[in-house]
């Protein structure tokens, strides 16, 4: 997904003269080198507060800034800048992160950021995308380039087997019995084997914030259980789900990254298992609510 971000971003810089890419010594620093678009690749060095402040200043000048770094350095360190320099100024930008949750498992806690979606979702006026495939990432980035709003595109290291439409809608992949399972972004990869032989409905979205409320209402027609499998901090999607249900009595389970700090290295798959969001863990959670 990160490779696709690079190629897509390079094309956008050439195709869209408003586009700028703001970096803090991480990412495709050499993008467009030797071409006129290189001047719109702005590297601030290791200064993540300025990363966001400068991006907001570029937006004040009428540019469309894309801001890219590791999730903890893009969202958590300059969080007040996101709140004030972008949201409070009512300025647009596209944040593009890598290092989703524990993708950087072996780097330890410093490079892990499961809370990013909850944090961005707590700010007004943001759309959050968690593409599950490079094709989805590309179409989301292209759509974002044409807008003026605030978007967060969370790139993951482990894609789903196939792309699905990245149109902000909820897509029903399979019909089934009384329980509906909603897999968000790259969580679909583990959810597919988890529910392969279970009589449940399965739906997918790459845009959890705002959640497709109409799509969710359709999915839950005649069903009273919903399991949300989310690739970030568990229950980050809860405010969107609860609002979409509008008071309906539905049994809810959120399966995501736990709040406790797992003080271990290993692989992303290890962390999935420890947090109960590998295929076996998801299957247990689905059966437990059935």
């Amino acid at each position: 997904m990160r490779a696709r971000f690079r190629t897509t971003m390079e094309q956008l810089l050439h195709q869209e003269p408003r586009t700028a890419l703001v970096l803090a010594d991480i990412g495709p620093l050499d993008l467009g080198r030797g071409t006129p678009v290189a001047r719109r690749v702005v590297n601030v060095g290791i200064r993540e507060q300025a990363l966001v402040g400068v991006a907001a200043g570029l937006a004040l000048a009428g540019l469309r800034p894309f801001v890219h770094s590791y999730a903890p350095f893009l969202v958590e360190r300059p969080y007040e800048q996101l709140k004030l320099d972008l949201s409070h100024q009512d300025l647009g930008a596209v944040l593009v992160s890598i290092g989703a949750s524990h993708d950087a498992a072996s780097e330890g806690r410093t490079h892990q950021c499961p809370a990013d979606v909850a944090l961005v979702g707590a700010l007004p006026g943001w759309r959050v995308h968690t593409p599950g495939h490079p094709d989805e990432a590309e179409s989301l980035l292209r759509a974002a380039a044409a807008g003026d709003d605030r978007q967060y595109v969370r790139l993951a290291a482990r894609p789903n087997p196939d792309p699905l439409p990245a149109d902000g809608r909820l897509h029903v992949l399979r019909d089934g019995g009384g329980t509906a399972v909603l897999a968000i972004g790259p969580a679909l990869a583990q959810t597919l084997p988890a529910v392969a032989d279970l009589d449940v409905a399965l739906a997918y979205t790459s845009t959890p914030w705002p959640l497709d409320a109409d799509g969710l209402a359709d999915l839950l027609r005649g069903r009273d259980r919903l399991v949300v499998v989310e690739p970030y901090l568990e229950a980050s999607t809860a405010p969107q789900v609860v609002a979409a249900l509008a008071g309906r009595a539905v049994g809810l389970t959120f399966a995501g990254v736990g709040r406790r700090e797992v003080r271990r290295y290993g692989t992303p798959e290890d962390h999935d298992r420890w947090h109960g969001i590998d295929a076996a863990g998801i299957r247990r959670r689905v059966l437990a609510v059935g």
Partner: protein
Amino acid sequence: MTSTTAPPRPLPPALLHNLRRLTGDEKHDAAAHSTLDVLWVLHDRVLRLRPDDPAMPGRDRFLLSKGHGPASYYAVLATAGFFPEHWLDDLAGPTAPLGHHPDRLLVPGVEISSGSLGHGLPLAVGLARGLDLTGEAGDVHVLVGDAELDEGSNHEAIALAGRWGLRRLRCVVVDNASATLGWPGGIARRFEVEGWSSAHADAADHDALHAALTRPADGPHVTVVRAARKGA
């Protein structure tokens, strides 16, 4: 404060009237407002702005980073004609456009919503770089307080502006000696080592202020304005 030794300031009576109107405090001496002189000189003599067209392309941009205590700013904008003077009579009321921190979406002429320290200068750096990229005319002026410089975000921005040689960026530091731990070697030194040019002026000397604010520069330029000590 005592004003027996303060020189007379060439501030127009309408501005002082508007300031009193806003604070509702007749004995509140204008000199207590550390930013008043530089705000007036900027808007009266330096900035290319049109109050009847605050979003005019090619205008100079003024970013008030020191957004707390904006009474002087509001009085200057009202006097310059950016919004009706009667707005000054309802500060921070439930339907008031003027609050204790300015909001760019509510007040014509206000380029940034500020109040939390350390945001204006990085915004100004991005704006100056952005205008260089788009080719639009206009200088970018940003006003910060000396204590506000404590924020690390400002030091990120000072370094960037110097390295990038942002010629259209002009910072004003209003020094009312309010930084708790101070700046050994002086405030201007912090900018100079990053490649900025600098100038000093007293708040009360408007001609010196004007000269310092408009001094030609090959890169970013800072004017350190000596104002009355906070609480004096």
